[in-house]
Each structure stands twice: as C-alpha cells, then as structure tokens.
C-alpha cells in the first residue's frame, strides 16, 4: 500500500491577541493515512469548533500545520516543486459546503467547467472538451443539455452541488475532500448527491474525505469514521461499529441527539450535561466537563486511544482494560 495523503502528527494552533497570546488548538496531534490501493470514504464528524474544517483545509493544502507535516504521496506538501504541486492540485479536489457561493454568477456552467480543462491542459480540442464535460455531468446524474449554457442562478441548490462534484470529477482526481457537501441542500435532494459521491468511489476509484456534522449521512455513505471533539480524536473506526454501538460518551451523546425519522427511536435517553459555552478545561480529557461518566482521573490526564474492538478505538478511560493504540496508528482501524 502506498500512502496517498498522509497527515503525520499534525497540529494546528491559532493564536490571537497581541500581548497575551491566547491559543486555540484547532487540531491536536492528528495522524491519518489515506491509502491509494483501495478507495474508501472516510467521514470526519464533530460539532462546530471540533476542527473538522481545519482538517479539510490542511488536507487541501490551504493552511500550513503548526506542528507535524502533511504528506502527499510521501512528500511534504509545502516542499513540493511547482510541477508536482500542480499535479497535487489536480489530483486532490474539493467540494464545498455552500452551492450558492462557489460559482461566479456571471459565467455560464460551460465556462465554469472549461476553466479547469484549460488550466490543467486536459485537451486542446473544443469538441473533446465538450465531451468531457458531458461525461462528467452525466456521471453525477445531470442531463448535459439541461445544464450547459445555463447560469448558476437558473439551477437549484442540488443541481449546483452536483456540478461541483462534476467539476471535480472532470480532473480525474484520486482524492476528493467534501466539506459538508449536503448540509445546505434540501433533504429531498441529499439522497441524489450522496448517491453521486458514492458512485465516484465505486466507478472511478476515488477516495473521499467526507467532512460533516451529520452522522446520519456519514453512516450512509462512509466506510469508516473519525469523531472529533475540540481538535482531538474521540472515537475512530468502522462506521457500522461506531454508529450502531458507540463507546465514547461523546459519540453516544451525538448519536442520541440525531432526530431519526423513526417512530420507534425516541430522542433523549442520555442526559445533556452542561450547557454549551461552559466547558473549558485545560488539562485532561476535553470532554470531561460535559461527560456524565467523568472520573477524577479524566480531569488530570488526556486519555489515550483504547482499542475496544478490532476495528474501533475510543479515547476514554472507561475502556482502560483494552490495549492502547498509539494516535498515529488510527489508520490501522480504518484500513482494516
């Protein structure tokens, strides 16, 4: 297995304030390897402020890590020579959250799709460019004749988001970073977008880093999941194991708060501890302030990852009896 994109002990710290340097740890010692032998969809989930967008920005090379390094095909992203960096830009594509903000309203869809073709010199012939666009649009379930020649404002949110996916697909990427691709889209259209993302993996062998706060869609689309809370990994592993039988109290809370469209599953069996805005601990487990099972030791030391199952680990002292798993080995759970 050859690593495609690797985050090696990456931390990102934002500091603010001129005199007193107040530091916010957006992402803390994160390691993850996405491998190119077998395409997979990895979901990164957590509430706002958990560092999931920071992680996508790091993976896309938009921001530089404070500690550690981001490697693309074994080379540090920030030390790539120009031609390789261009290749990285082509092979790692992004789909962003807001389909209403990503397109320039003055350009037609044709133009928006031609830009990447020209930029990366995919083809010189206009006819071929057209075929490529049509293929990409059909691949995401859009009818090219309905889309080409139109302006973004003439399309619905769901259509636009699929155009984002088509644009990424045009460049035949090896990795797609999808940052909340369905959160702004109507519930009835979500299914179609998720379907096209899944198709990318199946038909084109594209790995996807799926960043979301919505565990429902994460469960449906991904193979494995990493649950983040304030920059740290709380639980990671196979998606079925994690969602159906969560171990970490935070994951339990998250899953318990999903409003399932099912009359049999009622809301709110675990109690909500502490209101938002009241949890600030400096040492120990980040979740200690809100955790219903908090022990004295949680407030002193940061719990390491304990491997509770073959395909899952949770960072919680409740599972101390299980063997520890070094943070940089999360990938083992995911590729297993």
């Amino acid at each position, binding site marked *: 297995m050859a690593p495609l994109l690797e985050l090696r002990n990456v931390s990102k710290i934002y500091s603010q304030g001129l005199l007193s340097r107040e530091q916010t740890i957006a992402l803390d010692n994160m390691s993850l390897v996405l491998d190119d032998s077998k395409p997979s969809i990895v979901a990164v989930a957590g509430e706002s402020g958990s560092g999931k967008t920071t992680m996508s920005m790091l993976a896309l090379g938009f921001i530089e890590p404070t500690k550690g390094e981001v490697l693309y095909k074994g080379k540090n992203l920030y030390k790539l020579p120009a031609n390789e960096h261009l290749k990285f830009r082509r092979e790692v594509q992004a789909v962003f959250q807001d389909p209403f903000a990503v397109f320039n309203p003055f350009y037609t869809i044709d133009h928006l799709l031609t830009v990447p073709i020209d930029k990366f010199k995919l083809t010189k012939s206009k006819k071929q460019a057209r075929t490529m666009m049509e293929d990409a649009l059909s691949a995401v379930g859009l009818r090219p004749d309905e889309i080409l020649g139109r302006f973004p404002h003439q399309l619905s949110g769901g259509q636009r988001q699929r155009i984002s996916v088509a644009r990424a697909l045009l460049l035949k990427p090896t990795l797609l970073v999808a940052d909340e691709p369905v959160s702004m889209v109507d519930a*009835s259209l979500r299914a179609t977008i998720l379907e096209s993302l899944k198709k990318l993996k199946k038909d084109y062998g594209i790995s996807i880093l799926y960043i979301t706060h919505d565990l429902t869609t994460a469960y449906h689309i991904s193979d494995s999941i990493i649950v983040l809370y304030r920059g740290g990994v709380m639980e990671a592993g196979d998606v079925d194991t994690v969602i159906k039988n969560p171990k970490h109290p935070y994951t339990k809370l998250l899953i318990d708060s999903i409003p399932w469209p099912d009359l049999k599953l009622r809301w709110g069996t675990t109690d909500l501890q502490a209101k938002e805005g009241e949890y600030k601990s400096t040492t120990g487990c980040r979740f200690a302030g809100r955790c219903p099972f908090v022990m004295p030791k949680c407030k002193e030391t940061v719990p390491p990852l304990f491997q509770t199952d073959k395909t899952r680990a949770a960072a919680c002292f409740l599972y101390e009896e299980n063997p520890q798993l070094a943070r940089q080995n999360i990938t083992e759970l995911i590729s297993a």
Partner: protein
Amino acid sequence: MTSAVLQVSDLRVTYYTDSGRTRAVDGVNLTLYAGERLGLVGESGCGKSTMALALMRMIKPPGRIESGSAIVGDETDNVDMLKLNEEQVLQARLSRIAYIPQGAMNSLNPVMRIGVQMIDAIQAHRPKATKTEMREQAEAALESVELKRGVFHMYAHELSGGMKQRVCIAIGILLSPKVIIADEPTSALDVVVQRQVMETICKVQEKIGATVILIGHDMGLMCQITNRVAVMYAGKLVELSTVREMFTNPMHPYAKALIASLPNLDNKGVFRGIPGLAPSLLKLPSGCVFHPRCQYAMDVCKTTMPQQSVTKSGRYVYCHLYDKDGNQVSGTPLIKPEAVTN
C-alpha cells in the same frame, strides 16, 4: 378535544413579479388546537415561509394576500389576522402570534444589549409598564429558556449560536402568545445544540400552553417533535396528518416519496431521492402540481386539480387516488409504505 387556536381557511398569497404571477400559497386550510405542535415541511420554495409571513401579515409587495382568513384565539377571544388594520396588527403580533424567523439568531442587534432589545418589544405592547416590571418580565423569559438572568446585560457576540437562538425564543414568548411560528429554528445548529433548543421550545410551549408551528425540511426532527405534520408542495398543502399516520401510512404520493427518501439505521447505503425537480411557481403544471413527478399519475391528474379529501381520523389529503372521504378510489394503485429493501 381542546379548542382551536388557529383556523386558517383558503389562504392565498400571490407574488406579482415581472415574469408573471406566482401563487406561493394556494388555498391552504388548517386548524390547530391548543397545545399542539405542527410540523410544516416541504422543499425550498414551496411556500412554507410565505405562509408563515402571511399569518403574521408580513407579506410585502410585490406579494399580496389574495383571500382567506386566519383566526387566532379561542371562541371567546379571537381575531382574524388578515382583517385587522395596521394598528391592530401591531398589537396582535407577539401578544397573540409570534414569529421566530429563519436565521433569527443573526437578527439580534450587535450594538444593543439583549435586555434593551427585549424591553423594546415589551414597551410596544405595554406602554404603561414600569422599568422594573419590564425587566422582571424579560429576565423571567430568559430563565424560561434556560438562560442565566445575566444574559440580559450581554451583547449578541458574547453568546453562542444555541444561546442566541434561545434569546430569540425568549423574545418570541415574552407576551405568552397563543401561536408560535418557528421557521427553521435549528437549521444552522449542531445536533446536540439542536436537541437542546428543541427541548427548550417544547418546555416553554407546554408552560404557556401555546401552539407551535415548526417550519423545516428535516423530517427526522418533525418525527421527534411534532404531533401533526403538514406537507406542502408548490404552494399547496398536499397532506396533513398525525406524525404516526404520516410515517406509517403516508397517503399522498409526494409524502410517501419524502418518507421513503429518509435515511435511517436500517437501510444503509440505499438512497432513494425523489426524481425530477420541484416546479417553478411561475410555470405550474396543469392539473395536480405533482403529476410530472408522480409515479401513480393518471390521466385525470394532468387536467384536473384534486379536491380535498378528509378521512375519518381528520387527515387532509389532496390526491385523485382518494374520494372525498379519503377512501381509496377503486382500481387505482394502492400506496403502501414501501418495505425497506437492503
């Protein structure tokens, strides 16, 4: 049955735009009872928010309320929101019917303290109240949404998203209205905060005995929170039934497709979107508005608009598959909630 607190009948709202007339709300009938929570769902642009605005008399040109009535209150004390004059409307808003708009949490004034904004609202309705009285009332409202009294002195930027949303709810319930309309109150919040905010709304509602209309497109949330669900499509109410009936036995094909498209724990990886797109309100299809996307479409659907059917249990449905008592018309395909296939 408790008394009705909101009776909407034949509500029609039209927007007169340069490219033509759009009927954003087209003949909606609704009756809500005290203590009830109604979910109003539909795709974007189907007229849910317009309907809420119409009930508040907040439709601005080029929009116009064409007809209908919206009676707020019980038999002894009620008003028709759509027939009041300007002055009366101002009095009725907030004291009888409150609206928590979409993205309300971004509507707080950043340079005014929360308390000042709340007192503003009270003052408009109770000009004679003393400062201490108003302050007490505002703080009590903050407390009822589980915020500290100290929030009264804070600015909006000092609060988190969930707390801001709760401040907006507190403003909404200041004068104990009978009807609270919440337009996507939690669409920008995380699941955990969403749950906290929704639980707050429910608690407050029970305390003041109001009716809540919850607008949104998250069927999961509706399932957990509401008693009844109304499904809107292209300006029309297509089905209104209890949550249980909606989820176990949807009658209208659109409601059925909506339920079937929902992800749950048992159907991993099965995505069933609704084929086609919602029609533009400018160019509505003839007959039943849903017929181009309907898998049960018959010839009559293309030409005639379906009439309201009311079943024995009080469900409304607008579909040619049913006669006016809500029984399946013989010979038509039977709509069943599809078994989950994996």
